[in-house]
C-alpha cells in the first residue's frame, strides 16, 4: 500500500469508527441536534445513512483519483472553511477535502448545525488526521493568526462582499487569498414518465430536508401538466411525509402565494407545508416546486434561463450522463445521496485547492 492509499485508508477508518452505532460522541451530537431543534431526527438519520453508504474507502479512493489528489499537497497550508447549516453535516465535503490534501483545517461552524461536524473533527484529530485544527461558531474566535491560504465557502451572490469584508476586517484572509465561492442554490429534475420509481425519486429529490438543499429540486420539467399528475403525486408526497415529517414549516407568505396563484388561475397543489405550481419563475422562495410541462428542449431552455443559481440537473436512466447546457445530467435517485466526488458548482474542491496553492 503506498502512502496515499494509506492516508485514504486512515481517513476511511476514522470515518467508519465515527459512524459506528456505538459511537457515543456521535449519538450525543445527534441527540443535542434533535433536542435543540436544529434538525428533525429523520433528516439527521437520512444524512448519516447516506454518509455510511457514500464514505467507504473505495469512495474516497475514487474521489482521490478523479480529483488528482497528491499526498500532503497542502501541507502547512491553512484552509478556512465557512460551513453552511441548511442541512445536517453539509460542511463535511469541505472538511474532508482539506483532510485529504493534508491542509490545516480552520472551520467556522454554522450556528444552525453546531454539534454534528465537531464530533467528526474530534474523531479525525484522535486519528491524527487533523493537526492544529481551529474551529468555532464565531468568526472572531478564529482571528489572530496569519491569514488563510485559501477560503472555501458557499453563499448567496449578494452575501459575498459582506463575507469578504468581514473576513478581511478580522485578517482571516488577505487580498490575495484564493476563494472558492459556491453560489448555486437549487436543482432541476427532468422526467419523462410517471412510473412509481420515478415519482418516488422525484418526491425524495424535492421534499427531503424540506427542500432546503442546493441539490433539492426546485423545478421539474415533465411531459404532463401538473393537474393531470396532482392526485397521484400528492399520494407519493403524503407517503413520504408519513415517514419523514417536514421539520421546518414555511412562512405565512406561502399562503399568500397560494392565494395569488388561485386568483391568477395558475395551476397549483397546496400541501400546507409546500406549494407546487405550474409556473416557471426564478426559484427564490423556499417550499415551492415549480412545475413545467415540456420536453428535453424545454429543459435546455430552462437550464439556459436559470443557469445562474443552478446546482445540478437530474433525470432517469435514458438521460444520465447526457448534457443539458453545461450540466452533465445526474441520476435523480442520487439527488439527496450524492457520491463524495460530486462537484458543487461544477468544481472539484480538491482539484481547485491543489491548483490554487
Amino acid at each position, binding site marked *: 500500500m503506498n502512502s496515499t492509499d494509506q492516508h485514504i485508508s486512515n481517513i476511511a477508518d476514522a470515518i467508519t469508527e465515527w459512524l459506528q452505532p456505538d459511537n457515543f460522541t456521535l449519538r450525543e451530537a445527534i441527540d443535542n441536534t434533535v433536542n435543540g431543534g436544529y434538525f428533525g431526527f429523520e433528516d439527521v438519520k437520512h444524512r448519516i445513512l447516506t454518509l455510511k453508504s457514500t464514505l467507504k474507502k473505495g469512495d474516497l479512493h475514487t474521489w482521490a483519483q478523479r480529483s488528482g489528489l497528491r499526498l500532503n499537497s497542502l501541507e502547512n497550508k491553512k484552509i478556512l472553511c465557512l460551513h453552511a447549516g441548511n442541512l445536517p453535516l453539509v460542511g463535511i465535503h469541505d472538511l474532508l477535502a482539506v483532510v485529504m490534501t493534508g491542509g490545516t483545517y480552520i472551520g467556522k461552524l454554522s450556528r444552525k448545525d453546531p454539534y454534528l461536524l465537531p464530533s467528526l473533527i474530534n474523531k479525525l484529530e484522535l486519528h491524527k488526521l487533523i493537526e492544529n485544527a481551529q474551529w468555532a461558531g464565531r468568526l472572531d474566535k478564529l482571528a489572530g493568526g496569519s491569514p488563510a491560504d485559501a477560503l472555501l465557502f*458557499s453563499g448567496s451572490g449578494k452575501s459575498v462582499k*459582506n463575507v469578504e469584508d468581514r473576513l478581511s476586517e478580522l485578517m482571516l484572509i488577505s487580498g490575495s487569498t484564493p476563494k472558492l465561492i459556491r453560489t448555486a442554490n437549487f436543482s432541476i429534475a427532468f422526467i419523462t414518465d410517471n412510473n412509481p420509481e420515478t415519482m418516488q425519486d422525484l418526491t425524495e429529490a424535492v421534499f427531503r430536508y424540506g427542500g432546503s438543499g442546493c441539490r433539492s429540486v426546485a423545478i421539474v420539467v415533465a411531459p404532463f401538466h401538473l393537474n393531470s399528475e396532482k392526485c397521484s403525486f400528492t399520494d407519493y408526497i403524503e407517503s413520504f411525509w408519513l415517514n419523514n415529517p417536514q421539520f421546518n414549516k414555511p412562512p405565512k407568505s406561502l399562503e399568500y402565494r397560494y392565494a395569488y396563484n388561485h386568483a391568477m388561475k395558475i395551476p397549483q397543489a397546496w400541501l400546507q407545508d409546500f406549494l407546487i405550481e405550474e409556473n416557471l419563475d426564478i426559484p427564490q422562495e423556499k417550499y415551492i416546486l415549480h412545475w413545467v410541462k415540456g420536453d428535453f428542449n424545454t429543459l435546455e431552455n430552462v437550464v439556459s434561463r436559470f443557469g445562474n443559481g443552478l446546482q445540478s440537473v437530474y433525470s432517469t436512466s435514458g438521460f444520465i450522463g447526457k448534457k443539458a447546457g453545461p450540466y452533465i445530467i445526474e441520476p435523480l435517485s442520487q439527488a439527496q445521496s450524492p457520491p463524495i466526488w460530486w462537484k458543487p458548482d461544477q468544481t472539484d474542491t480538491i482539484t481547485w485547492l491543489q491548483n490554487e496553492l
Partner: protein
Amino acid sequence: MDTKGWSEYIFDSSISFTERCLEVYRFQKEKNQLYNLFSGALGYTGATLAGPEAIPLLPIRAFNQGIISVDGVSHQVVFKSSGTSGMNQSSHFIHDIKIYKRAINREFFTHFPDKNYALICYMPGYRDNPNSSLILMAQYLISRDRSGLATFWENSDFNPGKWEEQVNKNGKIPLLFGAAFGLLDIIENGKSPFSGPVEIIETGGMKTFKREITKEQLRKKLSEGFCIPQGSIHSEYGMCELLSQMYAIGDEWFTAPNWVWVTIRDPENPRRICNPGEEGKIGIIDLANVYSCPFILTDDRGVADESGRFKVLGRWNIDDPRGCNFLIDRD
C-alpha cells in the same frame, strides 16, 4: 357608491381614510373578480372588515401577469413599466385618467406650487416608452403651466442656461425633475449646467440603468454635482402600478397624501405590519387605484418611523433563498 362618484369620493378628506378605504374595499370585493378570489383564498370572504390594516395586499407582480381591473369598465390608457432586468413589463389598465391627473394636481402642487417653481423634465430613458406613466405625468404638469416656462429637456439643442435666465426673470425657482441616473448623467462631466440654485425631484429608478446606489449616495452626488444643499433635493416615489405619488421633501422620508396609506409589511407574513424601524416590504393602499386594485404589496424594501413617514431602501431581495446560503451567520 356608483362608479361615477369615485373620482370625487376617494379624495374627499372630510371623510375619514378608514371609511373611504372600507368603501373601496367593498367595491373591490364586489367588482374585482381577481381581488375577490385572492382575498377569499386568504379567508376574507365577507365584504366587511375591522379596518384598513386587515385588508390583504395583492402582490405587485399581478400587474405583470394579468389584467388588474374591476369588471365592466373600459380602459382609456395603459401604463407600462420600463421592463428592465429581463422582466416582463407591468401593465396598469386605467379606466379614468382624470383620477391620475387629480392625484397629481393635489399632491405635486401641494409641495411644488407652480407660482413658485418652473419645471424642467429630464427623462431621456423614459421617452422611449410611450406608455410611461412618468412621461404622461410630466406632459400633464407641463401642459398645466400657464407661464410657458415648464418644459422637457430632451435634446442637445436645449440650452439650460438660457432657460434658467428666463425662469429667474420670472422670479421662479428652477425645478429639475427626472430619474436618478438621468440626473447623474447631467453632472457626469463634473459641471452643473445651471449657474444658479435649482431644486431637484428625483424619481428613483436607480436600478434601471447602470448600477444600484443608495439614496444617501445619490443625494450626496446630486448635491455635489449641482452645487446645491441636500435640502434642495426631493424624491418622488411612484410607479406605473400606482396612480398616486409620494414625496420626500429635502430628505429621504416620504409622506403619503390623505388617500394613500403606506405600511411596512413582514415579508414572511404580509398580514403583519412591521414596527417602526423594522425593515420589510412596502405595502400601499392607494385609493386612486379604485378601478384596478388599490391594495398592493410591493417588492420594495422600506422602513417607517413612529409618525408613519417611510424610507425606500431599494428592492426586497431574498438573500437566503433555498440552498447553501446560510453560510455566514451574523456574529
